[in-house]
Protein backbone atom coordinates (compact mmCIF):
# COMPACT_ATOMS: atom_id res chain seq x y z
CA UNK A 1 0.00 0.00 0.00
CA UNK A 2 2.97 2.32 0.23
CA UNK A 3 4.13 1.87 -3.35
CA UNK A 4 4.21 5.04 -5.34
CA UNK A 5 2.54 3.97 -8.57
CA UNK A 6 -1.04 2.77 -8.48
CA UNK A 7 -0.43 -0.03 -10.95
CA UNK A 8 2.30 -1.49 -8.75
CA UNK A 9 -0.16 -1.44 -5.87
CA UNK A 10 -2.67 -3.40 -7.93
CA UNK A 11 -0.10 -6.03 -8.90
CA UNK A 12 1.05 -6.37 -5.29
CA UNK A 13 -2.61 -6.77 -4.36
CA UNK A 14 -2.95 -9.70 -6.74
CA UNK A 15 0.12 -11.35 -5.18
CA UNK A 16 -1.45 -10.84 -1.76
CA UNK A 17 -4.71 -12.45 -2.90
CA UNK A 18 -2.85 -15.44 -4.33
CA UNK A 19 -1.08 -15.84 -0.99
CA UNK A 20 -4.40 -15.73 0.83
CA UNK A 21 -5.79 -18.37 -1.52
CA UNK A 22 -2.82 -20.56 -0.70
CA UNK A 23 -3.54 -20.07 2.99
CA UNK A 24 -7.17 -21.11 2.45
CA UNK A 25 -6.06 -24.22 0.59
CA UNK A 26 -3.65 -24.99 3.40
CA UNK A 27 -6.47 -24.70 5.92
CA UNK A 28 -8.49 -27.29 4.03
CA UNK A 29 -11.02 -25.05 2.33
CA UNK A 30 -10.49 -26.01 -1.29
CA UNK A 31 -13.64 -24.43 -2.63
CA UNK A 32 -13.03 -21.10 -0.96
CA UNK A 33 -9.41 -21.04 -2.11
CA UNK A 34 -10.36 -21.65 -5.71
CA UNK A 35 -13.20 -19.13 -5.49
CA UNK A 36 -10.72 -16.63 -4.06
CA UNK A 37 -8.40 -17.11 -7.03
CA UNK A 38 -11.26 -16.90 -9.54
CA UNK A 39 -13.09 -13.94 -8.04
CA UNK A 40 -10.33 -11.80 -6.58
CA UNK A 41 -7.35 -12.47 -8.81
CA UNK A 42 -9.47 -13.02 -11.89
CA UNK A 43 -12.08 -10.33 -11.53
CA UNK A 44 -11.48 -7.76 -8.81
CA UNK A 45 -7.82 -7.09 -9.60
CA UNK A 46 -8.65 -6.85 -13.30
CA UNK A 47 -11.40 -4.37 -12.49
CA UNK A 48 -9.01 -2.32 -10.37
CA UNK A 49 -6.36 -2.33 -13.10
CA UNK A 50 -8.95 -1.18 -15.63
CA UNK A 51 -10.09 1.57 -13.29
CA UNK A 52 -6.50 2.73 -12.81
CA UNK A 53 -5.83 2.73 -16.53
CA UNK A 54 -9.08 4.54 -17.32
CA UNK A 55 -8.51 7.29 -14.78
CA UNK A 56 -4.82 7.78 -15.57
CA UNK A 57 -3.64 9.82 -12.63
CA UNK A 58 -0.22 8.69 -11.55
CA UNK A 59 0.81 12.24 -10.79
CA UNK A 60 -1.04 12.21 -7.49
CA UNK A 61 1.22 13.49 -4.73
CA UNK A 62 2.43 11.06 -2.12
CA UNK A 63 0.74 11.36 1.26
CA UNK A 64 2.23 14.05 3.43
CA UNK A 65 4.36 13.13 6.36
CA UNK A 66 1.66 14.04 8.84
CA UNK A 67 -1.05 11.86 7.32
CA UNK A 68 1.41 9.02 6.85
CA UNK A 69 2.45 9.20 10.50
CA UNK A 70 -1.16 9.41 11.65
CA UNK A 71 -2.23 6.43 9.52
CA UNK A 72 0.77 4.42 10.63
CA UNK A 73 0.00 5.22 14.27
CA UNK A 74 -3.66 4.28 13.99
CA UNK A 75 -2.97 1.02 12.19
CA UNK A 76 -0.18 0.11 14.61
CA UNK A 77 -2.46 0.71 17.56
CA UNK A 78 -5.22 -1.38 15.97
CA UNK A 79 -2.78 -4.20 15.25
CA UNK A 80 -1.39 -4.06 18.78
CA UNK A 81 -4.85 -4.27 20.31
CA UNK A 82 -5.90 -7.13 18.04
CA UNK A 83 -2.68 -9.06 18.66
CA UNK A 84 -3.03 -8.56 22.39
CA UNK A 85 -6.62 -9.78 22.30
CA UNK A 86 -5.63 -12.84 20.26
CA UNK A 87 -2.65 -13.87 22.34
CA UNK A 88 -3.88 -12.92 25.79
CA UNK A 89 -7.41 -14.29 25.58
CA UNK A 90 -7.64 -17.79 26.99
CA UNK A 91 -10.68 -18.73 24.95
CA UNK A 92 -8.64 -20.09 22.07
CA UNK A 93 -6.80 -22.71 24.09
CA UNK A 94 -8.89 -25.80 23.48
CA UNK A 95 -9.42 -25.19 19.79
CA UNK A 96 -7.30 -27.60 17.82
CA UNK A 97 -9.86 -29.70 16.04
CA UNK A 98 -9.22 -32.45 13.59
CA UNK A 99 -8.87 -31.77 9.91
CA UNK A 100 -12.45 -31.19 8.76
CA UNK A 101 -13.72 -32.37 5.44
CA UNK A 102 -15.44 -29.92 3.13
CA UNK A 103 -15.86 -31.50 -0.25
CA UNK A 104 -17.46 -29.50 -3.01
CA UNK A 105 -20.35 -31.95 -2.97
CA UNK A 106 -21.09 -31.17 0.66
CA UNK A 107 -20.92 -27.45 -0.01
CA UNK A 108 -23.29 -27.79 -2.93
CA UNK A 109 -25.69 -29.81 -0.82
CA UNK A 110 -25.67 -27.24 1.95
CA UNK A 111 -26.16 -24.43 -0.57
CA UNK A 112 -29.15 -26.16 -2.11
CA UNK A 113 -30.83 -27.24 1.11
CA UNK A 114 -30.08 -25.18 4.16
CA UNK A 115 -28.82 -21.99 2.52
CA UNK A 116 -31.06 -21.79 -0.50
CA UNK A 117 -32.69 -18.52 0.51
CA UNK A 118 -29.38 -16.65 1.06
CA UNK A 119 -28.24 -18.08 -2.28
CA UNK A 120 -31.23 -16.55 -4.04
CA UNK A 121 -30.70 -13.26 -2.24
CA UNK A 122 -27.05 -13.19 -3.31
CA UNK A 123 -28.07 -13.86 -6.90
CA UNK A 124 -30.52 -10.97 -6.76
CA UNK A 125 -27.89 -8.73 -5.18
CA UNK A 126 -25.34 -9.56 -7.86
CA UNK A 127 -27.84 -8.79 -10.61
CA UNK A 128 -28.79 -5.52 -8.98
CA UNK A 129 -25.13 -4.57 -8.49
CA UNK A 130 -24.33 -5.35 -12.11
CA UNK A 131 -27.19 -3.22 -13.42
CA UNK A 132 -26.40 -0.49 -10.90
CA UNK A 133 -22.73 -0.37 -11.86
CA UNK A 134 -23.58 -0.11 -15.56
CA UNK A 135 -26.15 2.61 -14.93
CA UNK A 136 -23.77 4.62 -12.71
CA UNK A 137 -20.90 4.37 -15.17
CA UNK A 138 -23.07 5.35 -18.16
CA UNK A 139 -25.01 8.18 -16.55
CA UNK A 140 -22.77 11.06 -17.58
CA UNK A 141 -22.65 10.04 -21.19
CA UNK A 142 -26.42 10.05 -21.53
CA UNK A 143 -26.63 13.45 -19.97
CA UNK A 144 -24.22 15.08 -22.38
CA UNK A 145 -26.07 13.81 -25.42
Amino acid sequence: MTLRKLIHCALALSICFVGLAGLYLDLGAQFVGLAQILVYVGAVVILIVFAILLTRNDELPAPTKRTRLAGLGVSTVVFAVLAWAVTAGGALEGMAGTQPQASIKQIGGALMQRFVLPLEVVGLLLTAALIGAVVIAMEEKQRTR
Partner: protein
Amino acid sequence: MTPLTGCLLVSALLFSIGLGGALTRRSAILVLVGIELMLNAANLNFIAFWRYGPHPEALTGILFVVFSIAIAAAEAAVGLGLIQAVYRHSKTTDVNRLNTMKG
Protein backbone atom coordinates in the same frame (compact mmCIF):
# COMPACT_ATOMS: atom_id res chain seq x y z
CA MET B 1 1.71 -20.53 19.42
CA THR B 2 -1.11 -22.56 18.01
CA PRO B 3 -1.91 -22.42 14.29
CA LEU B 4 -5.18 -20.66 15.08
CA THR B 5 -3.27 -17.85 16.79
CA GLY B 6 -0.98 -17.59 13.79
CA CYS B 7 -3.92 -17.28 11.43
CA LEU B 8 -5.54 -14.66 13.61
CA LEU B 9 -2.29 -12.68 13.77
CA VAL B 10 -1.92 -12.76 9.99
CA SER B 11 -5.51 -11.61 9.70
CA ALA B 12 -4.92 -8.77 12.18
CA LEU B 13 -1.84 -7.70 10.23
CA LEU B 14 -3.80 -7.72 6.98
CA PHE B 15 -6.57 -5.68 8.56
CA SER B 16 -4.08 -3.13 9.89
CA ILE B 17 -2.39 -2.79 6.51
CA GLY B 18 -5.75 -2.27 4.83
CA LEU B 19 -6.81 0.25 7.45
CA GLY B 20 -3.56 2.20 7.15
CA GLY B 21 -3.83 2.25 3.37
CA ALA B 22 -7.46 3.34 3.40
CA LEU B 23 -6.63 6.12 5.85
CA THR B 24 -3.49 7.53 4.25
CA ARG B 25 -3.70 7.09 0.48
CA ARG B 26 -5.20 9.92 -1.53
CA SER B 27 -6.44 7.98 -4.53
CA ALA B 28 -10.02 6.75 -4.24
CA ILE B 29 -9.08 3.49 -5.97
CA LEU B 30 -6.52 2.70 -3.31
CA VAL B 31 -9.01 3.46 -0.57
CA LEU B 32 -11.20 0.80 -2.16
CA VAL B 33 -8.23 -1.58 -2.26
CA GLY B 34 -7.72 -1.03 1.47
CA ILE B 35 -11.36 -1.90 2.11
CA GLU B 36 -10.95 -5.08 0.07
CA LEU B 37 -7.94 -6.03 2.20
CA MET B 38 -9.96 -5.57 5.38
CA LEU B 39 -12.77 -7.76 3.99
CA ASN B 40 -10.20 -10.44 3.20
CA ALA B 41 -8.92 -10.31 6.76
CA ALA B 42 -12.46 -11.02 7.97
CA ASN B 43 -12.72 -13.93 5.53
CA LEU B 44 -9.47 -15.38 6.82
CA ASN B 45 -10.85 -15.22 10.35
CA PHE B 46 -13.98 -17.11 9.29
CA ILE B 47 -11.94 -19.84 7.63
CA ALA B 48 -9.55 -20.15 10.57
CA PHE B 49 -12.36 -20.47 13.08
CA TRP B 50 -14.15 -22.96 10.85
CA ARG B 51 -10.98 -25.05 10.62
CA TYR B 52 -10.11 -25.05 14.31
CA GLY B 53 -13.55 -24.55 15.82
CA PRO B 54 -15.62 -27.16 17.63
CA HIS B 55 -18.19 -27.84 14.87
CA PRO B 56 -16.48 -27.92 11.48
CA GLU B 57 -19.06 -30.27 10.00
CA ALA B 58 -21.67 -27.51 9.91
CA LEU B 59 -19.84 -25.73 7.05
CA THR B 60 -21.16 -22.38 8.26
CA GLY B 61 -17.81 -20.62 8.06
CA ILE B 62 -17.18 -21.70 4.49
CA LEU B 63 -20.63 -20.69 3.30
CA PHE B 64 -20.35 -17.34 5.07
CA VAL B 65 -17.07 -16.73 3.26
CA VAL B 66 -18.62 -17.70 -0.08
CA PHE B 67 -21.41 -15.18 0.39
CA SER B 68 -18.94 -12.60 1.65
CA ILE B 69 -16.79 -13.01 -1.48
CA ALA B 70 -19.87 -12.52 -3.67
CA ILE B 71 -20.83 -9.37 -1.81
CA ALA B 72 -17.27 -8.04 -1.95
CA ALA B 73 -17.21 -8.56 -5.70
CA ALA B 74 -20.48 -6.66 -6.08
CA GLU B 75 -19.13 -3.89 -3.86
CA ALA B 76 -15.96 -3.61 -5.93
CA ALA B 77 -17.93 -3.37 -9.17
CA VAL B 78 -20.26 -0.68 -7.86
CA GLY B 79 -17.42 1.21 -6.17
CA LEU B 80 -15.26 1.29 -9.28
CA GLY B 81 -18.27 2.35 -11.37
CA LEU B 82 -18.83 5.21 -8.95
CA ILE B 83 -15.16 6.18 -9.16
CA GLN B 84 -15.42 6.21 -12.94
CA ALA B 85 -18.49 8.45 -12.82
CA VAL B 86 -16.86 10.82 -10.33
CA TYR B 87 -13.66 10.93 -12.37
CA ARG B 88 -15.57 11.78 -15.53
CA HIS B 89 -17.31 14.54 -13.64
CA SER B 90 -14.44 16.16 -11.78
CA LYS B 91 -11.32 14.82 -13.60
CA THR B 92 -9.67 13.58 -10.43
CA THR B 93 -9.76 10.67 -8.02
CA ASP B 94 -7.95 12.56 -5.26
CA VAL B 95 -10.15 12.20 -2.20
CA ASN B 96 -8.76 15.40 -0.74
CA ARG B 97 -10.06 17.43 -3.67
CA LEU B 98 -13.39 15.65 -3.94
CA ASN B 99 -14.88 17.74 -1.19
CA THR B 100 -18.16 18.76 -2.74
CA MET B 101 -21.26 16.69 -3.38
CA LYS B 102 -23.09 19.22 -5.50
CA GLY B 103 -22.55 19.89 -9.19
